[in-house]
């Protein structure tokens, strides 16, 4: 048995690699280790800032939307779907590697194609999530008036809930265009132009302040860290998809068949699984705790 022989071998006597791994694969491992430190540094820096704040937004309240579900409150449902997609694509990748071991070209191509589909699906989900966060319209306290903001790298609408009396007072100082946006949010049947023609007092009368759930503005660092880290991960997914497409074309054209082995797929697979591995920790740090 190979394992029994491996334990009896004196690996450091020279004449053989003490690591028993092909050069390219070993270097892929070391690259991934360094990449783990890059991601680790980002996430730890996020942790430091989070620990330095008295208040941090609750992920269940920030990430509660689902495409096509309107304003339904579905905490973490969409990101769970994204996690499932990525785990699933990791499985199809490992199946492609497995078929590569058996020099089964047709199955390698099939599973790689599914992996590419999974990667693209994940990226599409992330694009929707970012768009939803950036273009969201949330009523927040802005000094003694109200503002409507989305989640960007410069503002954060997820501070503590403001009490209704101070929000009502702030409504009196809120400028016309903001009042129009707030009224439109509660009266979808009326267009912006139609609302803009109304007087401020009329608009204020249409706005149900309790239903607005007005918040204080939250820690600004939240947006920068969220977009930088999920963006950096998304960039890894993107390059992983490109690598997998290249592998798919090479396998389809019989390059690996001629070579007699599918080692290249294993290296691409390592990278792809690493992307899934990083997501485990991004998911942990931004969504779960």
């Amino acid at each position, binding site marked *: 048995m190979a394992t029994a022989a491996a334990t009896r071998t004196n690996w450091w006597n020279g004449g053989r690699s003490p690591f028993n791994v092909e050069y390219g694969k070993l270097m892929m491992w070391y690259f991934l280790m360094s990449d783990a430190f890059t991601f680790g540094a980002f996430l730890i820096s996020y942790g*430091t800032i989070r620990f330095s704040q008295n208040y941090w937004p609750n992920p269940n309240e920030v990430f509660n939307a689902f495409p096509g579900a309107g304003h339904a409150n579905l905490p973490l449902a969409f990101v769970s779907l994204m996690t499932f997609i990525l785990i699933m694509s990791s499985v199809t990748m490992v199946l492609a590697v497995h078929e590569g071991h058996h020099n089964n070209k047709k199955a390698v191509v099939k599973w790689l194609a599914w992996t590419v589909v999974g990667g693209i699906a994940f990226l599409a989900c992330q694009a929707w999530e970012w768009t939803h966060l950036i273009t969201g319209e949330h009523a927040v306290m802005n000094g003694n008036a109200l503002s409507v903001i989305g989640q960007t790298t410069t503002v954060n609408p997820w501070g503590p809930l403001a009490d209704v009396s101070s929000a009502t007072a702030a409504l009196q100082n809120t400028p016309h265009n903001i009042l129009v946006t707030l009224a439109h949010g509660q009266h979808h049947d009326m267009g912006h132009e139609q609302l803009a023609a109304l007087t401020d007092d009329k608009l204020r009368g249409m706005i149900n302040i309790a239903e607005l759930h007005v918040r204080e503005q939250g820690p600004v660092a939240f947006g920068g860290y969220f977009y930088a880290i999920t963006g950096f991960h998304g960039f890894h997914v993107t390059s992983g998809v490109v690598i997998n497409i290249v592998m798919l074309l090479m396998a389809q054209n019989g390059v690996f068949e001629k070579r007699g*082995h599918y080692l290249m797929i294993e290296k691409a697979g390592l990278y792809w699984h690493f992307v899934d591995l990083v997501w485990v920790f991004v998911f942990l740090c931004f969504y779960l705790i």
Partner: protein
Amino acid sequence: MEHHTETTEVTFHHEPSQGTKRIWKTFWILLGITVIELALGFFMYLFPDLPSFVVLFLKGVIVILSLAKAFYIVGVFMHLGDEIRNMVMTIVVPLMLFVWFIGAFLWDGNSYRTMRNRYDPSMENKTMQAPTQKKDTSVLPLH
């Protein structure tokens, strides 16, 4: 079956596994752990008034479950568990740096918060909600 004869670095080859049972088993484990994590997170969302040590405990459990997921992904999907010990150690030992890295930097963030609250009371008034009082913690006074 003829093995990969292309490289001189590899002394012993693994027999390629015959079935995909192990892969699917790992998939179900990963999925199961994720569902448990989400259930715990949802539990904390449903009961926002849990005492802080319970929240801390649940978050600790979620962290450990995530580490278990990482273990399965690296060990089974990336086949690191099938490599020889020499090679595994060159990957795992440097990663031990994270123990210090995480501890030191979270400690630093916490001490920054504590000191700001202590020496800049307006900070506390601006950013803290009345019911979630966080007490001065764990940072020794400067002498």
